[in-house]
């Protein structure tokens, strides 16, 4: 298996306001290509600030931010970086209300040398990917909240960025629409290898990711890879009293009553593998 490239690397990243309020207090993290990472934390933990640093919307007070090999903290042309390297998805989709879905998707492409035909074709393709084929000519007012966010996702892919930065993308959506949005992110990540960083306070959203970085008071307090839910269930069973009995070779009454005695060896082997 080829080694994945580093897309984001921060070193001792600090952001303060007026030298008194510290939003980030020395964050060190690395995000690899094709990872779907969630940054979780309570309000004021610094997760949006971290996103803004990575996306070159703001400059750090100290420390380094490297994205796709570029030292963002030292960059002179942040506009070019935001145009070519990252794509943003905001909590409030921030679509232009007078433009159609396709026109909204083409907005970032205006900075590239593309013909109108090329832009339109790419916009249509991206809208198809996010499941909005046939809705190219609808304006945001004619779309549901979930559909608008999907247009925003398509827009974030317009210039083939190295990664997508999503700030609370499901924050304004109902559970069903939020689930659809996360499914799209997972699909983009799994099927197209898109590196995605999602900021959220919602554990359900975070569990859709492969990895969760927990922030608290501007610091990373935990950085874990999300387990497969079935594997998680098995581990919990292994740790339970019944699981421990089975591993010891005991045949508890509950095993006898359900007629699983003949399957004890298999059960024991499975638990040993977990």
């Amino acid at each position: 298996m080829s080694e994945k490239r580093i897309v984001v690397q921060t070193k001792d990243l600090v952001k303060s306001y007026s030298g008194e309020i510290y939003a980030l207090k020395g964050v060190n993290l690395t995000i690899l290509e094709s990872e779907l990472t969630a940054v979780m934390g309570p309000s004021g933990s610094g997760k949006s600030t971290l996103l803004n640093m990575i996306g070159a919307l703001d400059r750090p007070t100290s420390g380094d931010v490297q994205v796709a090999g570029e030292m963002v903290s030292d960059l002179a042309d942040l506009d070019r970086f935001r145009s070519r390297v990252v794509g943003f998805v905001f909590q409030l989709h921030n679509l232009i209300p007078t433009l159609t879905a396709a026109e909204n998707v083409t907005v970032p492409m205006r900075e590239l040398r593309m013909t109108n035909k090329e832009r339109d074709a790419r916009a249509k393709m991206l809208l198809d990917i996010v499941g909005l084929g046939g809705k190219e000519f609808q304006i945001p007012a004619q779309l549901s909240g979930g559909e608008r966010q999907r247009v925003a996702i398509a827009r974030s892919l317009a210039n083939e960025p190295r990664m997508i930065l999503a700030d609370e993308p499901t924050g304004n959506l109902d559970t069903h629409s939020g689930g659809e949005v996360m499914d799209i992110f997972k699909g983009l990540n799994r099927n197209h290898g898109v590196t995605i960083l999602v900021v959220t306070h919602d554990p359900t959203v975070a569990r859709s990711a492969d990895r969760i970085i927990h922030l608290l008071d501007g610091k990373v307090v935990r950085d874990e890879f999300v387990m497969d839910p079935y594997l998680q269930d098995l581990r919990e069973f292994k740790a339970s009293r019944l699981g421990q009995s089975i591993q010891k070779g005991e045949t508890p009454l509950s095993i006898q009553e359900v007629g699983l005695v003949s399957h004890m060896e298999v059960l024991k082997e499975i638990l040993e593998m977990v």
Partner: protein
Amino acid sequence: MVMKNIWRRKVRSLLTIAGVMIGIAVVVALTRLSEGIAGQITDLMMSTGAEITVMQSGIADMSFSALEEELGKHFAEILEVEWVSGFLFQITQVENNPYFVLLGVSPNGNAFDRFHLVEGEGIQGEKDLLLGHMASDFIQKGLNDRITIQKETFRVSGIYETGVGFENGGGVMKLSTAQQVFKKDDQVTLFQIKLKPQALDQIDEVITRLEAEFPEVIAYRSSEFAQNTPDIQMLQTLAAAVSLIGLLAGALGTMNTMLMSVFERTREIGTLRALGWRKVRILRMILAEALILSLIGCFAGIVLAAGLVALTGLFPALSSLGKAPLSGNAVLTGLFVALVLGAIGGVYPAWRAARLRPIEALRYE
């Protein structure tokens, strides 16, 4: 995107266009009118073929000029002079026309020849009057009808037309008759001097000698008379001043509209910057919106100006101004002014929009 942004706030855009339209209409109409009036006076001065026009020095308005008729004889003694003709120029009320231009013309030179008669036999007696064809239509007087001027009654002995609106909207009588009616004995308003053919390259020298020998007069080339008279200059200055006020109002209106538009779209502009749009693109977008509003207002203003100029048809002496199409100069002036308006109105809002920090703009409520 620019056109959609303009159409987003239809009423506000239309009001801004209306403001620009009025500013442009004022500029174009006043330019046209002052050009037209200057042109009419130039045509008047050049219609006799005289190269030099002389009036009293030190006065602000040509109609106040008063010269001794005797001066004409002295002018005629100048070697280069072929003939001298004196005119008395009066504006008076006749019938329902408050702006009736009356010329008292001396018989010297070909002063009367240019009044091409379409009806009648011309001036025969002291109480005869020639009427311009536009004046005839306006006051509903024809050949042999009677007209009262300054309580004296005159017979319309001929209907004429010339190429000059002032003249077509007024009337002509003998100089002596006009002097008597308006109690300006032995006076003329101005002299026209025709040079001999061999002296046509000495116009400026003759003018210099005239002014040196006769300090009470000022002389101009007939072709430049209008541009040099104080009243035309004052008219042009007044036109410029009123135009400037109109322009300022238009520019401020445009700037207000664009500033409001930028404030309302703060978050949107932040999004565009976050998506990679450069400052210069934002600036170009806002400026383009301002310029398009101004250009639309310009075209509407030119149409309105044409209508305003056409209203001069209410006065027969000025009606020829209304018939002539807007000059290329007037239209180009309007276009230039519209672009300046758009630039002035849009540059500050565009600069503000481009300076917005994306992170702050995205947080704007």
